[in-house]
C-alpha cells in the first residue's frame, strides 16, 4: 500500500512539473524561425570556415571551446572509470567463446569498421558525422573483438598514452592559433594560411576542422574502448 501511495504522489508531482514545463514551452512555438545567431552561422559558414556542414563548423570552429570541454569530459570519464575499477592484477573473466558466425564475422569486419570510422571523422566537414560518431564506430570494432574472443585485450597502456598525446595535440593546435592569430583555438589553417579556399565542398578544405576531427575521432575511439576494457576486467585472486 505504501508503495502505491508513494507512486501516486510521485506521479502527481511529475504531472505538475510536466504542466509547468508545457506552459513554458508554449511560449516557444514549434517549427517557427527563431534563429538569431544561427542565421549568422548559416549565412557565413562557407566563407568563414570552409565547411559545408554547418553543424560541424559550429561544433569545431565557432564553438570549439565547448568541444574542447566535451573531449575533456570524456577523458575524465575514462580516467575516472580507470581510477575506480583499478586493481593490481586484473584479467578478463569471460568464458564463452563467441559463435562461429561472430568470430568469423569479426575477423572479416574489424578492419572495415575501423576504416569506416576513419571515413566518418575525416569527412566530418562535408557529410553528417564527425569525430564523435566516428570514434564511437571505432570503439564498436574493439567491442566486437571483445565479444568474439575471450582472451582479447586492447593494448591499454599504449591506448592511454595515445589518449594523452592526442589530447595534448588538440590543446597544442589551439595554442598555435594563439601564437599565430592571437586567439586561442583560432583557425590558422583557413584564416591565416588560406589553404583550400577554392576547394569548398571537397576533402581538402575546412581549415583545421579535419585535423581537429581526426584528433577527436582517435581520442573518442581510444577512450570508449578504454572504458569498455575497464568494465570487462575484474580483479583476479591467484
Amino acid at each position: 500500500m505504501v508503495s502505491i501511495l508513494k507512486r501516486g504522489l510521485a506521479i502527481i508531482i511529475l504531472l505538475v512539473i510536466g504542466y509547468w514545463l508545457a506552459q513554458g514551452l508554449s511560449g516557444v512555438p514549434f517549427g517557427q524561425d527563431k534563429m538569431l545567431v544561427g542565421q549568422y552561422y548559416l549565412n557565413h559558414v562557407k566563407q568563414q570556415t570552409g565547411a559545408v556542414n554547418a553543424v560541424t563548423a559550429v561544433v569545431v570552429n565557432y564553438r570549439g571551446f565547448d568541444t574542447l570541454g566535451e573531449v575533456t569530459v570524456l577523458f575524465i570519464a575514462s580516467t575516472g572509470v580507470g581510477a575506480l575499477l583499478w586493481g593490481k592484477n586484473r584479467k578478463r573473466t569471460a568464458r564463452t567463446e563467441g559463435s562461429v558466425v561472430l568470430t568469423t564475422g569479426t575477423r572479416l569486419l574489424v578492419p572495415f569498421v575501423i576504416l569506416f570510422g576513419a571515413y566518418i571523422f575525416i569527412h566530418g566537414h562535408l557529410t553528417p558525422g564527425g569525430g564523435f560518431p566516428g570514434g564511437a564506430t571505432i570503439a564498436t570494432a574493439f567491442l566486437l573483438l571483445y565479444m568474439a574472443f575471450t582472451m582479447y585485450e586492447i593494448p591499454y597502456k599504449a591506448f592511454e598514452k595515445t589518449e594523452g598525446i592526442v589530447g595534448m595535440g588538440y590543446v597544442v593546435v589551439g595554442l598555435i592559433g594563439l601564437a599565430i592569430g592571437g586567439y586561442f583555438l583560432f583557425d590558422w589553417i583557413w584564416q591565416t594560411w588560406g589553404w583550400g579556399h577554392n576547394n569548398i565542398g571537397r576533402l581538402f578544405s575546412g581549415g583545421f576542422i579535419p585535423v581537429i576531427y581526426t584528433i577527436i575521432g582517435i581520442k573518442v575511439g581510444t577512450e570508449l574502448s578504454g572504458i569498455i576494457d575497464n568494465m570487462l576486467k575484474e580483479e583476479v585472486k591467484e
Partner: protein
Amino acid sequence: MNCIACISYILVGVMILSAILAVEWRDLLAATVGMAAVSLFASILFFMLQAPDVAMTEAAIGAALSGAVFIFAIKRTQRFESEEEERPGWWVRW
C-alpha cells in the same frame, strides 16, 4: 494529416511505450534493451527533425555503446531487481 505526421505520431508513441517498459521491467537486461530502443527511436526522430549528425551520434553512442556499458555493468552485478523491493505498479500489472 499527411503521412509523415502519422509516422512521427507512431514513433513518439512507440518511444514512450518503450520508455515506460524500460522503467518498469524487473529484468534489468530487458530494461537496458528498452532504453536502447528509446535511443534508437529518438535517433529516427532526430533524423526526421533534419538533424542527421545528431541521429548518427545518438545511434552510435546513445544506443549502442551506452547499452553495451550497461550490459557489462549488469554482468558484474546482478540481473534482476530483488523480489521484495518491487511490487507491480497500479497501472502496469503482469
